[in-house]
């Protein structure tokens, strides 16, 4: 009898219900994300076998030594970080005014329409959009052939073609909504009376923006930076298609080691190293902005 009532109390407790409800999803993430990631970390310390997909289970640090000392990997990792920095900067700076406009100058009943318009391109095939940028920016592409046919240029522009700039441009386009949404959410939370107070106390519109709006929007900006920076470091499709394989980024190296070269341990070590670097940079960035993130709601 007591056992049954204890059981009854247990099944009515919020914690029990919470765990019971979330367990299928948590278990799924554990099996398909946590376990695979742990396997990658484990493999990065093992030795590559000579057979196809063979791994000799013998502890070694050689993969990391190679990943961190080989000048090619270093150069590619640096290029990946540079591209991600540029993409993040371009995306967040270009996105902020749009988020500001939608939050402050669009009627409340039109806001979700604007956000919907901004997110549509993001949901349509990433692969197709990247390929279209190649078509647009290419040597005989849309821009060059267009300018030529209206007589503005005689020879195709080469500085817009296959280069790091084209990769940055394509990625900045792809991640635009990712930057707008967190900034928009932060701007929406700002108490509008604070801005009026700033103006009433004699601050100019610009100074009010600088001293009130921007600091309060910083949690959104930090979120936008992270949500653009982290995935772009690992972007595979854009360098592959726009760069035509000539400007590999770190994701292309990982893919090559994993599949073409068939060295899973080294590929794993490069991947783990890349994630560590990204993690450290992100952590430093968050800490540097900690004073903005503590702002009370």
């Amino acid at each position: 009898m007591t056992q049954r009532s204890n059981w009854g109390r247990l099944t009515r407790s919020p914690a029990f219900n919470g765990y019971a409800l979330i367990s299928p999803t948590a278990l799924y993430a554990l099996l398909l994300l946590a376990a695979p990631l742990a396997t990658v970390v484990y493999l990065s310390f093992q030795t590559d076998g000579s057979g196809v997909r063979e791994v000799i289970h013998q502890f070694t640090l050689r993969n990391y030594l190679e990943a961190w000392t080989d000048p090619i990997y270093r150069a590619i990792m640096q290029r990946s970080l540079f591209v991600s920095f540029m993409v993040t900067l371009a995306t967040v700076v270009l996105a902020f005014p749009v988020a500001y406009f939608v939050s402050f100058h669009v009627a409340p009943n039109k806001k979700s329409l604007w956000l919907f318009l901004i997110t549509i391109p993001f949901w349509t095939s990433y692969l197709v959009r990247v390929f279209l940028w190649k078509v647009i920016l290419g040597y005989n592409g849309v821009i060059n052939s267009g300018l030529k046919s209206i007589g503005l240029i005689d020879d195709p522009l080469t500085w817009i073609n296959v280069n790091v700039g084209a990769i940055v441009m394509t990625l900045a386009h792809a991640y635009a909504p990712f930057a707008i949404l967190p900034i928009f959410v932060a701007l929406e939370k700002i108490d509008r009376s604070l801005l009026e107070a700033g103006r009433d106390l004699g601050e100019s519109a610009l100074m009010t923006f600088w001293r009130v709006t921007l600091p309060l929007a910083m949690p959104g900006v930090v979120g936008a930076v992270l949500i653009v920076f982290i995935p772009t470091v690992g972007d595979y499709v854009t360098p592959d298609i726009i760069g035509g394989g000539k400007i590999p980024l770190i994701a292309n190296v990982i893919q090559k080691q994993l599949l073409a070269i068939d060295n899973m341990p080294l590929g794993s070590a490069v991947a783990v190293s890349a994630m560590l670097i990204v993690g450290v940079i992100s952590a430093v960035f968050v800490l540097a902005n900690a004073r903005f993130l503590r702002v009370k709601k």
Partner: protein
Amino acid sequence: MKSQGNGLRLYAILYLAFLYAPIFLLPIFSFNDGTIIAFPLKGFTTKWFAVMAEKGQLHQAVINSLIVAGSTAILATTLAIFAARASTRFEFKGKGAIMAMIMLPLVLPEIIVAMAILVILLQMGVGLGLTTIILGHTLICTPFAIAILSAAFQSLDKSLEEAAYDLGEGKFSTFRLIILPLVLPGIISSLLISFTISMDEFILAAFIGGTSPTLPVYIYSQLRFPKEIPVIMAVATCLVAVSIVLLIIAEYFRRRGVAKTGGKDSGGFL
């Protein structure tokens, strides 16, 4: 203040034009009577769409994609219902950490997710195919589905549920009779978004799909052949058109869901 708003409006409109530029070019060149994607346009034709109808491999890829996207949508939404309900209704220790793990694929580079799943599948000796793509897609679609469903569950009035209990309904009948109808629009929206993401996803499908290409994998394989490009433009036009239609329906249901549960529309899916 007003002039500042006008300047910003112009900027926002230019920004939208930049976002939509590639998508607008798709239909233009898929109806262009030339094999090279360049100006000036050569004339109107529908032959690329006719060629599309004759490609057996393409049809197989479309069927594969439909199977994968359909299964993924159902699995991801089901998993998301559990997580969204648990996280919005109950308090328990470690909720933040558990939710962070579930939402992690949202920020992880896809190549990392793809390689991790590939590595563990190879280590376990699991054969690659449509099933493995479905498993991977479910993982990356679940966080998006949770984001949509959390909004739906969040705005539920707890007293409705308590009223049902007081009137003698059990846990499951309360869920079926009270909660489910109220969050149904959110569920439909989540199904459609998951379907669209899975339909468009390339990296995971390429890594863990083995020899069963989905539509994006097929498109990727054709990009190397210049003479196939116009047909691919036609295929992409159809894909993008389908995506946009699904998104508009999803947005319609998402808004209806928010209105139904009496919540305030914060806009957007994320």
